[in-house]
């Protein structure tokens, strides 16, 4: 194996934080590709420049997604990275593993690839970092026969992901792990065979903490919530009072100012609570949501290309979210259908909603306008009306004339 002189990277083996360089070298000790990846990276560090070429289209038979093709401009100098594709394995819901299956994954990867991984990629996949085109088919055969499938890439549904939810969290308002699993299964075709205008991501978070960053990084951000009061255990409140300043830390920080605490009793005006989770997370033993559970579906978030980042917008304020998730599945299909009909190439659904107008989207998917969807109403007077709108307004006025009572 070539021995590379890597003074710059070596520096990154020092210090308390675990070192990715150490990992690369560790893989490099047994694996030519990983070894060359180290040399290749040192070259980048010393010249302050990357040498990867534009990706090519590679993949496994019958699939369009799941593999990112990657070639180096310096294939002669570093033959081990001349081909250096990544394979995205669809992680299990909540990134739960047993050592047994992880070892199996490692064994197969050592056999066909660089021995380097990303656990995990930022969409959530278990990313296998670097293999040659000819390795793809056997690798896929081995993984799939053992129950592992590929994740998404390209213009498809991307690998859904979810927070740990009911697996280990007291605040989960729905079964994020099961929802993620069933939705991923439902849309296998959409995941594996890119047929959209661009990528489409779904993330499931059990509550407004949003531990899977769905609000910022998913075309569908499925966020658990509830309809009901926050139940208060006043005894536990007293315990908290011994270790924190409840007024300063909780009451004053409540965004809706719907709480009060007189040193003895904590009160919440639940009808004005917006369920932000602040008080609950800071006093988890004392405060618990109650009542009906479900999700708020927000849509459209994405990174800044082309006209700036988007955060997801509230589309469905409340939906029940229970197996077999029929309503949610139908909802997603309707959204994709409209997107498909309206998107230009490389337009995410949020961008299309913005371009075509929220009304056109909501009407297509059959969701009524609700003030919960907006932060504030429009500020300009450039208002569209259909003939039917005006007819409806006029009919209402006629009705009012009869009853003598206005309905604004």
């Amino acid at each position, binding site marked *: 194996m070539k021995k590379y002189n890597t003074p710059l990277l070596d520096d990154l083996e020092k210090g308390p934080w675990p070192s990715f360089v150490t990992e690369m070298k560790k893989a490099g000790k047994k694996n030519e590709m990983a070894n060359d990846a180290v040399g290749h990276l040192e070259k980048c560090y010393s010249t302050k420049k990357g040498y990867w070429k534009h990706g090519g289209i590679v993949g496994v038979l019958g699939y369009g997604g799941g593999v990112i093709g990657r070639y180096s401009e310096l294939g002669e100098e570093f033959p081990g990275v001349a081909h250096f594709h990544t394979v995205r394995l669809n992680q299990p819901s909540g990134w739960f593993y047993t050592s047994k299956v992880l070892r199996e994954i490692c064994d197969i990867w050592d056999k066909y690839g660089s021995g380097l991984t990303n656990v995990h990629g930022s969409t959530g996949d278990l990313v296998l970092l670097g293999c040659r085109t000819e390795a793809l088919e056997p690798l896929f055969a081995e993984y799939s026969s053992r129950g592992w499938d590929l994740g998404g890439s390209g213009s498809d549904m991307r690998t859904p992901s979810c927070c740990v939810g009911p697996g280990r969290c007291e605040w989960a308002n729905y079964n994020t792990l099961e929802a993620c699993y069933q939705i991923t299964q439902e849309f296998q075709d959409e995941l594996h065979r890119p047929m959209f205008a661009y990528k489409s991501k779904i993330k499931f978070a059990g509550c407004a903490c949003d531990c899977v960053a769905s609000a910022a990084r998913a075309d569908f951000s499925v966020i658990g919530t509830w309809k009901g009061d926050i139940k208060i255990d006043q005894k536990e409140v007293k315990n908290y009072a011994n270790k924190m300043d409840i007024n300063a830390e909780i009451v004053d920080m409540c965004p809706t100012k719907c709480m009060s605490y007189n040193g003895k009793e904590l009160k919440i005006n639940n009808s004005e609570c917006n369920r932000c989770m602040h008080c609950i997370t800071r006093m988890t033993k004392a405060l618990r949501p109650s009542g009906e559970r479900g999700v708020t579906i927000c849509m459209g978030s994405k990174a800044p290309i082309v006209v700036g980042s988007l955060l997801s*917008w509230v589309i469905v304020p409340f939906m029940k979210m229970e197996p077999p998730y029929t309503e949610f599945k139908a909802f997603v299909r309707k959204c994709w259908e409209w997107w498909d009909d309206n998107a230009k190439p490389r337009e995410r659904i949020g961008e299309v909603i913005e371009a075509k107008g929220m009304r056109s989207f909501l009407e297509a998917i059959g969701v009524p306008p609700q003030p919960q969807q*907006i932060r504030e*109403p429009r*500020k*300009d007077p450039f208002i569209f009306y259909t003939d039917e709108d005006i007819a409806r307004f006029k009919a209402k006025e006629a009705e009012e004339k009869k009853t003598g009572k206005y309905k604004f």
Partner: protein
Amino acid sequence: MALPQRKTDIGPPHYKQFLPPVIQKNYGDWKYHEVLTPGSMVHVAESGDKLWTVRMASPRILSTDTIREICALAEKYCDGYLRFTSRNNVEFLVSDEKKVAPLMKELKDQKRTVGGIGPMISNVVHTQGWVHCHSACTDASGLVKSMMDELHDYFTTKELPNKVRLAVACCVNMCGAVHCSDIAIVAVHTKMPEINHDNFKNMCEMPTVIGACPTRAISPDPAKKSVKINPDKCMYCGNCFTVCPPISIKNPERDGVAIVVGGKVSSLRSNPKFSKLVIPYISNEPPRWPKVVAAVKHIVDVYAKNAKKHERVGEWIERIGWERFFSLTGIDFTFQSIDDFTFMRDTMRTASTFKW
């Protein structure tokens, strides 16, 4: 009779000659003021001198004879000194405390409307309407008169949590203050303009017409040597009609008004705010626009009942949330209230934290 010699570029007369002596003496040296009644206040100077102001509503359209009557009052009580406010009220500037009560009495006897000072509804900033503007989809003065007949208590006697600034504009050009008022009315067209293609080529410049459209709804119609309008993009602003007479947009059955709320201009507590659309359409119903009046009254009442002292309408709504504004007022939430224009993305809600 020969005309006097015209002068140009002399600008307005210097205001100093119109200031009463007490102002001239204490100019820039005022110490504090006190609101005495909704129609009167006193400003006290560092010197101890005092200036009383008595404020009277004006319909803004004034006949010269009425102006002369106002002058007569000013002469009787204020040595002829008076001013108008930025909201078109009359202010009598009284230097002699003894004259304040008699002035107030005479105003009352003459059935003049006195008030507007403090946390009240003052006069309505408005526009020309059918009285004078070609662009009007309604009459502003009539709307103001109808509203203020209903709301005049809030001018003369009844306090609100804070000032409530009303405005009316007779078209989306929004001359005046509609875009930043607590509660305001803007008149709207609701149907695409019609084009008289025969006159087009003689009377209009194609690029100007195309350029006038904010939504790029207009494109050339070479066959007709005219233009055509895309019905999916036109939002009836009337800009094309303004620059091209053969385009007509007025429509008695469809023109109407919309109600916007929550704007402000001052920077007290919170930054200036734009008004937001809450009622998208009410039919034009001259002479009294009863539904418009009822809607405005209703919003004022809900505000009066729910806002904290010093909260402007917009500040109150932002505290409780727009969803709560709609539920408290019972106003229908329509597609029209969802922004579909340039700044839509900043008006959508980006969190699951809202009230049911």
